[in-house]
């Protein structure tokens, strides 16, 4: 199977959906003529032209809200946020309008919009550009949120998100854009709400989403080769809807869990997963659920230090050894 970068996989997903559905329009800052701030939309404007790939001014509240309004009339905008951190200036539009309009209208309206872009720390751009708001989005019934960890997942989830009739937030990762995975040439879709076992194991469950999955996989290798512990890595892929069954199935098998999460710990995604495990399968646990999150302070700039502010394989191993 050919190797494809995470970036190119998303680019292919966007191109395929533009071709498939005339209502799909790509919008965002620098997505067209500049070819994308992170080159995710490279070549799309040249291929598909002004109507389908649209540069916006730096005006997130305006253009995200505009996309939401257009989606109410059947357009399927795929809006790029150069960073998900910039969503905060469009928060009212995303949370109140995309998230609530269906409910407040008693189901008369739906917003088939995708809002996508990178949401990660680790690139030394300071706290304002390093937010991971998947927990905020997941805290909002009416919105959906997915965090792909690989090129394969990014493509399949993106295509599904575009076809979904509800607002879907896709949170990518700039540190993964240049990484490659096997991606088939033929079309495929990955449903939202289905986790993926990235590594099968018997002794402990490492449960993660987004780039934390890669961290978990590295930790799992070391746990196996150096400590003889066979860890299972569960990639949530989709946060809301959430594949709770996969989580419960894995932990029921291994009886131990470490949750790895680039979110901050307070009310982070892993807090929800921990609550779910103890509520539903408390008796299956042989040890307390452990968490490895970003260290609980704004994202530090200093490159050397930011590396350890995010979850590292060492911190995962430390927590795993604590309960194995």
């Amino acid at each position: 199977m050919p190797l494809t970068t995470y970036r190119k996989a998303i680019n292919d997903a966007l191109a395929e959906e533009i071709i498939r559905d005339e209502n799909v329009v790509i919008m965002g800052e620098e997505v067209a003529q500049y070819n994308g701030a992170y080159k995710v939309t490279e070549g799309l404007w040249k291929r598909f032209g002004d109507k389908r790939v649209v540069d916006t001014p730096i005006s997130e509240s305006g253009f995200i809200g505009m996309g939401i309004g257009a989606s109410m009339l059947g357009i399927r905008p795929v809006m790029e946020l150069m960073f998900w951190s910039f969503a905060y200036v469009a928060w009212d539009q995303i949370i109140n309008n995309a998230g609530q309009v269906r409910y407040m209208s008693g189901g008369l309206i739906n917003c088939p919009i995708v809002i996508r872009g990178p949401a990660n720390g680790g690139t030394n751009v300071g706290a304002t550009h390093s937010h991971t708001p998947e927990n905020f989005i997941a805290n909002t019934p009416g919105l959906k949120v997915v965090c792909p960890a690989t090129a394969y997942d990014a493509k399949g989830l993106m295509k599904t998100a575009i076809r979904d009739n509800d607002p879907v937030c896709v949170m990518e990762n700039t540190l993964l854009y240049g990484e490659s995975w096997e991606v088939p040439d033929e079309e495929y879709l990955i449903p939202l709400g289905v986790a993926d076992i990235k590594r099968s194991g018997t002794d402990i469950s490492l449960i993660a989403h987004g780039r934390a999955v890669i961290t978990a996989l590295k930790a799992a290798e070391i746990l196996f080769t150096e400590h003889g512990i066979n860890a299972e890595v569960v990639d949530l892929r989709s946060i809301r809807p959430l594949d709770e069954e996969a989580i419960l199935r894995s932990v029921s098998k291994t009886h131990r869990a470490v949750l790895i999460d680039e979110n901050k710990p307070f009310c982070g995604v892993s807090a929800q997963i921990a609550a779910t495990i103890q509520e539903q399968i408390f008796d299956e646990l042989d040890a307390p659920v452990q968490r490895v999150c970003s260290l609980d302070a704004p994202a530090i700039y200093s490159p050397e230090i930011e590396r350890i502010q995010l979850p590292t394989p060492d911190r995962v191993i430390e927590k795993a050894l604590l309960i194995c």
Partner: protein
Amino acid sequence: MTSATDDDVAVDPADFAQAPVNAILTPQQKIHFLKEMLRIRRFEQTALKYYNQGLMGGFLHLYIGQESVAVGTISLMGKNDHVITAYRDHGHAIAVGMGMNECMAELFGKATGCSRGKGGSMHYFAPDKNYWGGHGIVGGQTPLGLGLAYALKYQNKKGAALCFMGDGAVNQGAYHESLNLAALWKLPVVYIIENNKYSMGTTLERSSAMRNCLAERADGYGIVWDIANGEDLYEVRAKTDTAMRRAHEHSLPTVLEIDTYRYYGHSVADANAKKYRAPEEIDRYKIHHDPIRLWRKRLIDEGVINEEKIEAIDDKIKEEAAFAAQFAIDSPVPAPASIFEDVYWEVDNQTDAGMTGRHFFGD
């Protein structure tokens, strides 16, 4: 600039009556406008009665005093024209043709409400009538209105999005971002500022910097603007028509400021409704500038209708409003299970996507 606050500014009643869009009106249409304005007023007066009895929750932002704006503008809508507004939304809802029953039931939080009891007073919707709400956050609807216009242009439809807002919304960033995009992309949107002089309890003078009027700010974006005296339904129609033609024929935006006045507080819960303005000011509007009173007089002067017939119409409308209240009272509250309905389209429609993964958490 014409200002409704100046008693001595006389509007020549002939001026806008002779505008082409008004000259073609039949007596029946003119009477229909009166009926619609009366329906809004009687609906809200009835709602107020029950609100004050404690039969409704939340807020009730009354439109009374502003009826000519919704009725005049919306009377010009064709099949590809769309409307969106803020939380003072009852007037627009009735003007687009929503029934009093479902509107009243929504206020009572009943399952038969237009939003199934999920939106309340501020969140009426009727997409089948091109009415997209009903939005609670000041200025939050202005990018959505732009999006409706974007969709019309994208789909090559000759239409306009009428996006209503209060004078308090003009200082929100989302509105300015919307104006920039509207001008930049030549979108067929008409921003209608219903200037009732107060953003909650703060006067226009204390909230908004301007040279002469709020609409004039559009100059900064190269958008054509105008100002209308909202007490004159003919003028409202004439100026809205010009703006809508600009949208239809040239796909260009307009900012139209319509001077108007609300008799009640920001909402009924506004404890200071009579403190930040003199009672005499309210009385002056009721006596000299009331849009319904003026339209009645106009129709009588034109010989379109007489007092007796108007009273008969009004009596019927009062009955309609009373019936709507009874309908609402008799309607069931939503079933508790409906809390989880209308959150996700895919779940409601039981698609594969809607049945995959957990969508709702907790109990």
